[in-house]
């Protein structure tokens, strides 16, 4: 290939800049969040006393599995220790997905990491919730044009609460936790149920990104 041809080729490529509106519209294929009101755990009308008490216990005892991706992992120690003290809400770190209730995803997810996160999420026991942290999980954030990070987490996992910010400060994290507590008390935090109901849709999206799909059928190992 001679040099002139290469220069022509390069000039066609737009390496820097904002995508045009048409390009973005083409990319917004079937972007409808699946879990808005469909994932209710229990209806208000049929809410029993037992369920009320259980929800009370659930919301005040959140075992958090912090999946420390990206820069958000540094906000978690600040949130948990003396200054902001998330333990007063009953939050507590869980070491393994078996014991955890909340999966806290703290930043961008590369496709390589997404595979591990999905496995972690599927090993958790119901009822389980996902808190997505930072603008990277909402729309890609500053990694919107990266070749290796996903842009919107809720196409691959059901997200109960988003915490916006880059990075969100510990106050915002606590705000998100309180929001999740409210959802749990009302019986609206049904991400796990939603995931089961729409598993085909989620699997389709996941397999689009994760090319070498070698997941186990069940997690009894």
């Amino acid at each position: 290939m001679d040099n002139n041809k290469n220069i022509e080729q390069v000039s066609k490529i737009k390496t820097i800049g904002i995508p045009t509106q048409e390009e973005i519209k083409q990319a917004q294929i079937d972007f409808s969040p699946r879990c808005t009101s469909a994932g209710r755990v229990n209806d208000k009308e049929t809410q029993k006393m037992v369920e009320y008490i259980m929800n009370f216990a659930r919301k005040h005892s959140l075992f958090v599995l912090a999946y420390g991706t990206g820069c958000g992992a540094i906000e978690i120690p600040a949130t948990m220790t003396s200054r902001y003290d998330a333990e007063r809400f009953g939050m507590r770190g869980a070491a393994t997905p078996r014991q955890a209730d909340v999966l806290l995803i703290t930043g961008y997810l590369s496709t390589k990491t997404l595979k591990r996160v999905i496995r972690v999420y599927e090993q958790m026991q119901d009822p389980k919730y996902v808190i997505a942290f930072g603008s990277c999980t909402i729309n890609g954030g500053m990694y919107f044009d990266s070749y290796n990070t996903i842009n919107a987490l809720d196409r691959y996992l059901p997200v109960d609460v988003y915490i916006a910010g880059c990075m969100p400060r510990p106050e915002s994290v606590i705000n998100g936790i309180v929001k999740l507590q409210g959802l749990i008390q009302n019986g609206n935090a049904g991400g796990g149920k939603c995931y089961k109901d729409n598993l085909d849709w989620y699997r389709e999206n996941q397999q689009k990104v994760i090319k070498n799909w070698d997941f186990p059928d069940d997690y009894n190992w």
Partner: protein
Amino acid sequence: MEGILFKIFGAFITALLAFTVGMLFGGLRRKVIARAQNRVGPPVYQNFLDLLKLQSKTTNIAHGFMGHMAPVWIIIAAMTTLMFIPVLQGDLWFENLTMKGDLIFLLYMMVFGNLGMALGAGQSGNPNSVLGVSRGLSQLVGFEIPYFLAITALMLQFQTTTIAEFLNIQAETGVWIVLQNPFAFIAAVLASLGMFMYAPFNIVGAPAELASGPRAEFGGKYLGTMMTGGAVFAFIKLVLMVDLFLGGAGNNNLEGIAGTAVGLLELLLKTFLFYMIPVFVAIVSPRYRTEQAIRFFWKWPTFFGILAIVWALYKNGTFN
């Protein structure tokens, strides 16, 4: 006939008391640690909420027969051990079963729960669990030696192996065993740091290293049952130490329900004060490695244990 009914009723009440106090002390521990770190901390009843939530979780995994049995085994071990501890001296409900030589029986029974845990963790197949079990057994070898030395010193000094006898001796002489054989108390306290498995001896369930060790594959109801067993075991260890060294509780002249109430208050106070020793050590300590922990237990606690035996033989009159 009436006696048996009282015993059965007393067993239920004792189990309830052990569960409540154990869980409450766990919550108090978290609160104390939080206050020491200048935090607000969780409420005192946080452990009850945790338990309720864990019991409300679903389980869709199975790790074989021993995986199911491990928490049950721990509860069985805890309850059996509890039944042989005289919680209040001479009380109709809280004295429970006493027999000759129950101290030796207890020493073996307290390892039984760990054994169930080890088997369950082994069947789950998680490498972290297996590592945690091997660490736990190493630590057991570490702290059992000073602990056994301390208990043996008491047995030698007072020529008995019955816990109720120790209580009677302290009530008759009016002097607690902590003053009669201080070296045994020191050895037992140092060993109890390892028994409670808080920092610096939390090498078994180190969350950042081993992903909570033997519990790694247990969640939900299994974890809740294990928490209950752990709380009861904490109560057992505390009451045993109070019975053996700090004069026990319930030795008062009041009659009926008032005597029981005063005795319970005394028990709570003594156990709480003793419980604060490992908790305060845990607040200011990082984590030991396994060989460091064993080296610690085999150095000073063992030295004090041997000293306690020499002291016991001296008091006993063997050297005369």
